[in-house]
């Protein structure tokens, strides 16, 4: 295998991507997988807003509406936001720490394919008898009451993609602990690496409770277990706990990397080092820690009692402190800087006020007795969209613009980027600001319709108009991406001119082995230090030598495919509560699992030692890399 890039046929490219274990290519896969589901989730959102445009609309019937918002939430969280963040992490984090790849390239690929097959399985529900309809939280009394197989698509699909997430999380943890270049101490790590590290820790601790909860629900529905069946001594509240012990940290799993992205963008375009680096790290760790202490604030009205509510209320409000530290550090990073408003910076500037709005309403909801009014209303819907769009989505789009050259060697159009931002920013606030008031006026969330005469008409109309503006923005983003691919105008290693961290020292896109020589890290903002000393490249930490590379493999794809097949067998097994068991179900389940475990066995028994790129080959490429 050589890095000389002759024109390859479509088949060869497809095979390359199906078998790749290169973090940069896996980043591409996550990116386009995530963008696909993001568009799907966006379409679902538009359907929701059309149905709520005016009272008594009959665009969607009630059952379909429930499916629509359930799938919107599930898709956006599990299949759009997380993979898109994984795309950024995969593309950037190994470069930021001066590594050749992640610690386990094979597992990295496995993580992606599990996510993709889980996501496809979940969405097949639309054409196989109905999507899940109990909300993305799937509270079990309703989930067990749900007709059809929708909830089973939810449990099995999330179980498969959840394995993928857990594997990827562990992979990043090991990578960041073990693969840092010489000199890259923990306190010299860029913030995106730090937040990836903490988010991965959260994944490690948060996903097992979800897995357990979903496992219970799956067995209740498919094999007649009674974990949540009250008549049989089960307990339905335990699901709420399991779900939110996962669900609340999940919010931080999403938003911490977003913080990391902005912590890269803001110093870059302010041309100034991050203000209060150590307190930023401290705040990240603290948010991650407190994130596990507050899950019951989603359950203030469940009836946990005064003591539990009071404790969780105060713990929740405490999170405002480290978050506030971050906001002020970003502001002070810009203070005294030389701010250039590029598209990524524009998103960062849009993020600060939007996220502050989402943060303050979060504190208000943290006040338990006040939350009795706000809980399960449109106020909540407004709050978490302010956090997730204003925080996470803004960060993802900012990162797309910022790191596009590093991922593809080209630049997204800045001009179109500005227009997209204007539509997105205005549309976003138009959609969600008024929803705070809809909630306060008494509109519960997750309603398929509302009767006239309750004062909800105007607010909903405004909100729906805003949603369409956001739809335009996303369409523009997609057009921008396509145009950029068509133009294919290459840029050099540091296209923004002010790159500070190591990824900007390497070609755009980097060669498949990343750093020819592992770099020596002499401080925070490694590349900036070198540039300030007039150098163009990083100081190498080792002489030029052979590079050991992993082989590509189709096994991750096949392992995931096996689980995908097995899921159908599990769903239609004769014991399921929908009572539509099929004779072929058990054989399919066995075949699917055999494929998965068989491929694992092959992977374990067959030695795959990888290959070496020889020193001479690297020298030949010379100045190119």
């Amino acid at each position: 295998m050589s890095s000389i890039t002759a024109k390859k046929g479509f088949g060869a490219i497809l095979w390359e991507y199906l078998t790749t274990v290169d973090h940069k290519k896996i980043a591409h896969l996550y990116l386009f997988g995530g963008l696909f589901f993001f568009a799907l989730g966006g379409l679902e959102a538009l359907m929701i807003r059309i149905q709520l445009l005016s009272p008594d609309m009959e665009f969607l019937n009630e059952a379909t509406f429930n499916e629509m918002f359930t799938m919107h939430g599930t898709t956006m969280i599990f299949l759009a936001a997380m993979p898109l963040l994984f795309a950024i992490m995969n593309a950037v984090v190994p470069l930021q720490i001066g590594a050749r790849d992640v610690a386990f390239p094979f597992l990295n690929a496995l993580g992606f394919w599990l996510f993709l097959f889980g996501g496809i399985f979940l969405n097949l529900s639309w054409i196989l008898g109905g999507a899940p309809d109990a909300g993305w939280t799937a509270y079990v009394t309703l989930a067990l009451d749900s007709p059809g197989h929708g909830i089973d698509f939810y449990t099995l699909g999330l179980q498969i993609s959840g394995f993928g997430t857990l594997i990827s999380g562990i992979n990043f943890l090991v990578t960041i602990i073990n693969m840092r270049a010489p000199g890259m101490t923990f306190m010299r790590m860029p913030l995106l690496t730090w937040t990836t590290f903490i988010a991965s820790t959260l994944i490690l601790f948060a996903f097992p409770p979800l897995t357990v909860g979903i496992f219970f629900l799956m067995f209740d529905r498919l094999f007649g277990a009674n974990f949540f069946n009250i008549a049989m001594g089960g307990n339905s509240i335990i699901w709420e706990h399991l779900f939110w012990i996962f669900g609340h940290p999940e919010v931080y799993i999403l938003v911490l990397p977003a913080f990391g992205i902005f912590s890269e963008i803001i110093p870059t375009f302010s041309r100034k080092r991050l203000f209060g680096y150590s307190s930023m790290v401290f705040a990240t760790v603290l948010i991650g820690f407190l994130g596990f202490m507050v899950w019951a604030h989603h359950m203030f009205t469940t009836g946990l009692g005064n003591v539990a509510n009071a404790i969780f209320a105060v713990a929740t409000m405490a999170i405002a402190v480290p978050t506030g530290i971050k906001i002020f550090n970003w502001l002070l990073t810009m203070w005294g800087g030389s701010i250039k408003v590029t598209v990524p910076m524009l998103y960062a500037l849009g993020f600060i006020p939007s996220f502050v709005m989402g943060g303050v309403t979060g504190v208000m909801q943290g006040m338990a007795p006040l939350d009795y009014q706000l809980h399960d209303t449109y106020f909540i819907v407004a709050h978490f969209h302010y956090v997730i769009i204003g925080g996470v989505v803004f960060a993802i789009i900012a990162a797309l613009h910022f790191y596009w050259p590093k991922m593809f060697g080209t630049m997204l159009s800045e001009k179109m980027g500005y227009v997209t931002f204007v539509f997105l920013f205005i549309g976003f606030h138009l959609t969600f600001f008024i929803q705070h008031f809809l909630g306060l006026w008494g509109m519960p969330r997750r309603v398929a319709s509302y009767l006239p005469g309750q004062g909800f008409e105007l607010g909903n109309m405004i909100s729906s108009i805003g949603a369409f503006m956001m739809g335009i923005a996303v369409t523009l983003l997609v057009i921008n991406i396509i145009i950029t691919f068509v133009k294919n105008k290459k840029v050099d290693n540091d296209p923004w001119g002010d790159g500070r961290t190591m990824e900007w020292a390497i070609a755009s896109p980097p060669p498949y082995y990343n750093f020819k020589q592992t770099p020596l890290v002499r401080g925070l903002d490694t590349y900036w230090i070198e540039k300030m000393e007039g150098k163009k490249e990083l100081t190498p930490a080792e002489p030029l030598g052979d590079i050991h590379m992993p082989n590509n493999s189709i096994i991750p794809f096949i392992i995931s495919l096996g689980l995908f097949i097995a899921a159908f067998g599990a769903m239609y097994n004769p014991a399921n509560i929908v009572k539509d068991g099929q004779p072929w179900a058990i054989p399919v389940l066995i075949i699917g699992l055999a494929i998965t475990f068989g491929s694992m066995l092959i992977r374990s028994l067959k030695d795959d030692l990888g290959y070496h790129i020889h020193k001479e080959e690297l020298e030949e490429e010379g100045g190119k890399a």
Partner: protein
Amino acid sequence: MELSFEKFLLVIHTKEGIDGLMKKWRLFSVLTLMALVLSGCGEPYLSTLRPAGEVAKKQFDMLILSSIVMLFVITVVAIIYITVLIRFRRKKGDENKIPKQVEGSHKLEVIWTVIPVLLVLLLSVPTVWYTFDFGNLSGMERVNENGEKENLVINVRANQYWWEFEYPDLGIVTSQDLVVPTGEKVYFNLFASDVKHAFWIPAIGGKMDTNTDNINKFYLEFDPEKSNEAGNIFYGKCAELCGPSHAYMDFKVKAISKEEFNEWVSAMQNYEEPELNDVALRGQQLFQELNCINCHATTPANSTPADARLAPNLSDFGNRTTIAGILPMTKEDLKKWIKEPGKVKPGNKMYAEGSFSEEELDALAEYLMSLKVGE
């Protein structure tokens, strides 16, 4: 005011005319402004921003307090943010300037850690206080010298997609319309018989879930004056997703004075069969023949256990504010509901569509409308 162009010209040519116009304009703008502010607060029978009870009032006060604190935070951020944007944009000629690389500032960092901590502590005080205040159920079991409960306790049972209200100490079962006295604490036992729901009367106080696992308890208070202003009817809602008709699982609250409430109670307790005309009698016959009676009780004193009460109690149906919680109280709507409940509330447990002749529908509707207590 009738406006024509000539009249307008006439008016603005005299000083008095202008003054008058200005006065009217001022009045008009004040009215518009008030209307705007009020509409910004939502409907008096529904909005949390127009609290009509002690609990909602305290929650509203917390909302205002936290909003002020948060506005303070937002203002501070906004000032720094705007200053930064004005002062520190890269200017022409500074393209190659490298700003000073500041590491941080302990002083500033301490300030923006300590101040938020203080703000959080400030908000914690009412939070903890009211958590225990709203959770204080000591009045629930309190009895007077005669061994009678001092306070009214109501059992709320949530079902897909209707509400049952049982007054255990008064021996009354009713549904969909919750009748409560104003000016005193009313205690609630909340539970659900099928899936999880949540009981919420926004203008009166926060919600609480009706679980299938356990009974949740809380209290609300209905303010007499505010109740009058809202027309003595408040809207109640199910706040937890419970299936396709979650959006339609509304109920109404009749908040009336203690005297009126006592009258209602004695009427319900001394229930007498209403007098029925011929059509209604035919309806009653159908009601029994078609087995409606198997699930729907028509007397307020209901001794069957809760599990066996499969459908709303209809004893005071004729006096209800709505049909099925959402339709207006007219005979036409009632016929629509009896004929196609699946279209009004998809997924409801009665039936999706019934086959009735027009005559049967009329009779049933007439009978149900005649079910009035105390007339």
